[in-house]
């Protein structure tokens, strides 16, 4: 049992590392643009000292760019904070849509790098009793493998519905993504998490979606 928990922890650590590395990259990019905007303000002031008039509208635009990028960096830090807390949460009541939104936000940069777009399907929020971090980890294994299998300009839509006492999470993929292959890869790589969540994973018979079915209440 301890070896099994060790595998869940090991996958979790790897997931946490991937996400925080990606977030730090996003922060670096935000800082780089703030740095360039601030530097440009300095350059324009130096030029004004040499006789080139300062354009107040330009200064306002640059100042607004800095404000916007600081806001964006703050959003990234909030996302990091929420994600970090999900790693030390016990079983809690959480909205599956909230968990999806967190994962889409965390994965968006990596998805964009691979030419994959992520979206949420319209559905009513469903409360689940679960360990959000473990679900996020399994969703990441799904998305990471989609990025590896998909070519550019692919789209994945995350949705969920209730079926009896279960919740069914669906990742609807564009036809070029080999969902059967995805299901077997995720089943192998995510096996400890799938067992932990008492989850069943399968490709839709029409090959358009990956379906993850689990109890709506976590079974200890």
């Amino acid at each position: 049992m301890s070896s099994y928990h060790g595998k869940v922890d090991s996958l979790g650590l790897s997931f946490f590392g991937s996400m925080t590395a990606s977030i730090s990259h996003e922060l670096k990019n935000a800082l780089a643009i703030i740095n360039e905007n601030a530097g440009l303000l300095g350059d324009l002031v130096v030029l004004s000292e040499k006789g080139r008039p300062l354009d107040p509208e330009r200064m306002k635009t640059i100042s607004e760019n800095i404000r916007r990028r600081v806001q964006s960096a703050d959003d990234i830090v909030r996302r990091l904070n929420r994600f970090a807390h999900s790693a030390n949460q016990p079983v809690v009541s959480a909205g599956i849509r909230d968990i999806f939104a967190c994962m889409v936000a965390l994965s968006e940069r990596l998805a964009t790098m691979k030419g994959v777009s992520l979206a949420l399907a319209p559905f009513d929020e469903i409360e689940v009793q679960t360990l959000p971090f473990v679900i996020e980890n399994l969703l990441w294994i799904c998305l990471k493998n989609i990025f590896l299998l998909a070519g550019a300009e692919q789209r994945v839509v995350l949705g969920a519905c209730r079926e009896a006492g279960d919740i069914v999470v669906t990742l609807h993929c564009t036809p070029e993504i080999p969902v059967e292959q995805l299901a077997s890869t995720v089943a192998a790589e995510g096996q400890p998490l799938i067992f932990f969540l008492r989850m069943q994973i399968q490709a839709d018979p029409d090959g358009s979606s990956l379906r993850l079915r689990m109890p709506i209440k976590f079974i200890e």
Partner: protein
Amino acid sequence: MSVSVLLVDDDEEFLAILAERLTIRGMDVTRAASGEATLDLVGATRFQVIVLDLQMPGMDGLAVLERLIALNPTQQIILLTGHATVTKGMRAMKLGAADLLEKPVDIRELAEKINAAASVGQRGPAGARAGQFLGPPQQTRRPGLLQNLRDLFACGE
């Protein structure tokens, strides 16, 4: 004569501002927002120095670097990156990057690196060939990159 620079980054705001700041410093700057656009531009125009973002959607910086060096082995290329990894840094060096800088970048340092790379490039293929007699090419042509790699990876990846 001003140094001709091709600046490549997928973030258009970053690209526009950095281009303006380098122009203020007397450089002749052209912009490209993707690897594909970069390859189109170098087919038509010769640039003394290319400043290339390492991580871009589609064709990433290393793939672009490889193609650029294949097209022109003496092309001077400076890589810019949010986070360098040891693997990517070493691969960039092996592929022939002149230098590697981390974002956020100090504009004075970047301008110095561009000017230094442009003067190496001005020596042309003959200069690069002469350098090969002095030692391994990466030690004679890219001392800045080697030092930056040492600094960046002093604490590991």
